[in-house]
């Protein structure tokens, strides 16, 4: 059995962006807006509707940003690791903001796509492994090297899948 740490880290930027939605809502509450303008078009909205629209936008942005934080928390909730044993691999999938420990048999995997794009002067490196298992609930799942502790963990996962997922077709991008 082999265990690979797979933990999603929180960034300061995510917390900062998480404040944007509530800020929009607070602004919409305390600063009444008479109307909205799109380019040269004035919408002539009834009183309060513009603030309502802004509040909805604020609520949606809050849902997106806070939702991402909760999804990360859920992804880390079941040990934050990928466990490889003789028959399959176990990892955490996220269902409605809850972490679900999922085990997939190697035989159920029908396609594996490895993306390994080195860093360039204009873009950052991209290293992912997407497994496709149509008979499972999640169908597809992507592992990103960015959530692994070491570069060698990515190679170890690729190596293990190459040796054990006998029914899978491999593709490298």
């Amino acid at each position, binding site marked *: 059995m082999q265990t690979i740490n797979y933990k999603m880290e929180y960034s300061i930027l995510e917390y900062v962006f998480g404040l944007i939605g509530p800020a929009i809502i607070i602004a919409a509450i305390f600063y009444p807006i008479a109307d909205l303008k799109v380019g040269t078009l004035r919408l002539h909205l009834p009183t309060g509707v513009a603030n309502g629209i802004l509040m909805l936008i604020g609520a949606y942005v809050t849902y997106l940003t806070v939702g991402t934080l909760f999804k990360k928390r859920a992804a880390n909730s079941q040990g934050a690791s990928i466990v490889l044993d003789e028959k399959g691999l176990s990892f955490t999938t996220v269902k409605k903001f809850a972490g679900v420990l999922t085990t997939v048999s190697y035989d159920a995997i029908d396609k594996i796509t*490895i993306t390994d794009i080195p860093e360039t002067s204009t873009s950052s490196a991209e290293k992912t492994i997407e497994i496709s298992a149509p008979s499972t609930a999640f169908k597809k799942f992507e592992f990103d090297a960015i959530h692994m502790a070491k570069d060698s963990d990515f*190679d170890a996962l690729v*190596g*293990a899948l*190459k*040796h054990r997922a*006998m029914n899978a*077709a*491999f*593709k*490298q991008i």
Partner: protein
Amino acid sequence: MDPAAQRALQAGLINSEQILAYCDSYTTGLSHDTLAEGLGSYWGVSSPREAAETLEWLSRYGHRFFYDIVFQVYSDGASGEGRQEVLEALVASGRYGAPEIVRQQIAAQGPCEEKTLVFSALEQAMEMLGNLRSVFRLLEDEVNGSYSPKDYSAGILAWDLGRLVTVARMSLDCKYIGQDEFSRILARVDEELRSNFSSWPQFAKSYIIGRASWGGQNMTLGGIIGIAEDLMADAKSPWVLSPL
């Protein structure tokens, strides 16, 4: 040309297409300068003695000697880089002397010829292991589709046989070997072909896995796979006209 010699020549077709040599005669049809450049720069062959050594090496060991070792280490899932396992397998092969003596020489301080040879071989084998790791289960062609783990475990004999035929033809053109020696090589290639391969597509897989394990994934590999696909699928290809 007898059928056995013709089959053996066809084993070198991917390589001969790559260097733009004739595909249906003993002579390559290449100019003297091209032959001298090809044999000299790429194979280090510029005399009958060097030609004999290279042909003997391809015939006896080739790259399959390293491949069989690194494939075993890779399949066993060696923890870490696998360097120690490869080194031990090289020593145990007996190619560099009696294993016990070579182990003592490696452990001893100071240089010696066997030690240098083993560590030089280790570097080549480690490069091949790195290439094998990167191409394993990723190779495919239009005729065979994706190569299975079984294809990789079958080895890379075709890669060595194909190159053996081409180097022998070039050496014959340069008069480094005589017709008798050339015929002996073709007979050996034919024997290996009939014992180890049941079709040209199977041969092509072994050749491509060998090329990829030696040189890794690059643009040239794509070109070689393209040549093999044409040889397997083109209606006028010798492989299609004379199935193995």
